[in-house]
C-alpha cells in the first residue's frame, strides 16, 4: 500500500511541477489573474461603494451572491453536525484523555477568562463594524465571537454556558443570520432593482447611492457574523461532548 501511495504521489508531483513551468512569474503585476476583472474592482470600488477595504467590498457587494451561498453552506454544515451527533439520551462514559479528579473550579482561569471575554467580544464587534476601513468583516468577527463563547465554556463548563445560550436560540439565530442576508437582498428586489443591488436602499433611507451600498454591506456582514458565531459554537458544543451537551473539553 505505502510504496504504491508514494509512487502515485510522486507521479502527481512530477505532473504538477511540469505544469508549474507554464504559470506566470510569482508576484508579476501583469499576470492574467490581475489583469482582467480585478483592475475594475480596484479602480471603481471606492467610487461605487465608498468602501476603502477592497476585500470587503468585493466580498459583500460585487460577489455578494457567492457569499450568500457560502453562508448557507456554513448553516447547512452546522445543521448536519447537529443531525449526525445530537442525542437526547445519555451515552456511556468513555473518556480516553485524563480528566481532573477534583470538583472545585480553577479560580485563576475563571477570573482571567472573565476579564478577557468581554474584551474579545467588544473587539469582535469592532472588527465587524470597522471592516469597511480596516482588515475585518463578518466572517472574522463571527469567528472571534464564537471563539469567545468557546473560551468561556472551556474555562467554566459547557452546561453553564448553555444555560445562558440555549440550544433553541442557537438554532433560531443561525437561521436569522441567513434570513438577514437574504432579506436585505429581497427588499432590493421589491424596490425595483436586482437581487442584492444595495443601491435601492438609497431612496428608502434618504442617502446617496454610494452610502447605501456601504450600509447594505454592513447589514449583510452582521447577518454573516450571526450565522458564523452561532455555528462555530454549536460545532464545538456538539463535537466536544459527542452530542450529549453535558460536559465539554
Amino acid at each position, binding site marked *: 500500500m505505502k510504496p504504491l501511495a508514494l509512487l502515485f504521489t510522486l507521479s502527481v508531483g512530477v505532473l504538477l511541477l511540469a505544469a508549474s513551468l507554464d504559470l506566470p512569474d*510569482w*508576484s508579476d503585476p501583469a499576470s492574467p489573474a490581475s489583469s482582467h476583472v480585478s483592475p475594475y474592482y480596484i479602480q471603481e470600488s471606492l467610487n461605487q461603494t465608498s468602501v476603502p*477595504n477592497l*476585500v*470587503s467590498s468585493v466580498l459583500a457587494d460585487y460577489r455578494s451572491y457567492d457569499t450568500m451561498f457560502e453562508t448557507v453552506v456554513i448553516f447547512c454544515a452546522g445543521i448536519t453536525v447537529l443531525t449526525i451527533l445530537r442525542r437526547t439520551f445519555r451515552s456511556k462514559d*468513555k*473518556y*480516553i*484523555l485524563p480528566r481532573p479528579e477534583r470538583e472545585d473550579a480553577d479560580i485563576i482561569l475563571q477570573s482571567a477568562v472573565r476579564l478577557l471575554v468581554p474584551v474579545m467580544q467588544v473587539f469582535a464587534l469592532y472588527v465587524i463594524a470597522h471592516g469597511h476601513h480596516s*482588515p*475585518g*468583516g463578518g*466572517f*472574522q468577527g463571527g*469567528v*472571534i465571537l*464564537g*471563539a469567545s463563547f*468557546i473560551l468561556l465554556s*472551556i474555562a467554566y463548563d459547557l452546561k453553564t454556558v448553555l444555560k445562558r445560550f440555549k440550544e433553541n436560540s442557537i438554532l433560531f439565530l443561525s437561521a436569522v443570520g441567513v434570513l438577514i442576508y437574504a432579506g436585505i437582498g429581497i427588499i432590493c428586489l421589491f424596490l425595483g432593482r436586482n437581487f442584492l443591488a444595495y443601491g435601492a436602499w438609497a431612496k428608502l433611507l434618504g442617502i446617496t447611492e454610494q452610502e447605501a451600498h456601504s450600509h447594505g454591506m454592513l447589514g449583510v456582514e452582521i447577518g454573516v457574523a450571526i450565522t458564523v458565531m452561532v455555528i*462555530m459554537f454549536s*460545532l*464545538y458544543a456538539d*463535537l*466536544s461532548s*459527542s452530542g450529549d451537551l453535558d460536559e*465539554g*473539553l
Partner: protein
Amino acid sequence: MNWDASSLWQFNVLLLIMLFILAIAAISIKDLVASAVIFGAYSFIMCLLWTAMLAVDVAFTEAAVGAGVSTVLVLGTALHIKRKSKD
C-alpha cells in the same frame, strides 16, 4: 511603504521551511492530540506567511479559524476516540 518580493525573502524561506517540518510532523506523529496541536501551529505559520504576501484579511481569518477554532474542534474529537494512532 510598498512591498517587494525580494526584500523579505529570508523571512519567507524560514517560514516555508518551518511549514514543511510542521506539515510532515502533523501527519507522521502517532499521538493524535499532539498532531492536532502541531496542526494549529502549522495554521499559524501559514497565517504569518499570508501577512507577508499582503493578504491581511485572509491572514486574519486564518489566525482566528485555523489556530483557534479548528484546533479546538480536532481536540474535542480526539477526546472521544482512542488517542494513539497506529501509524
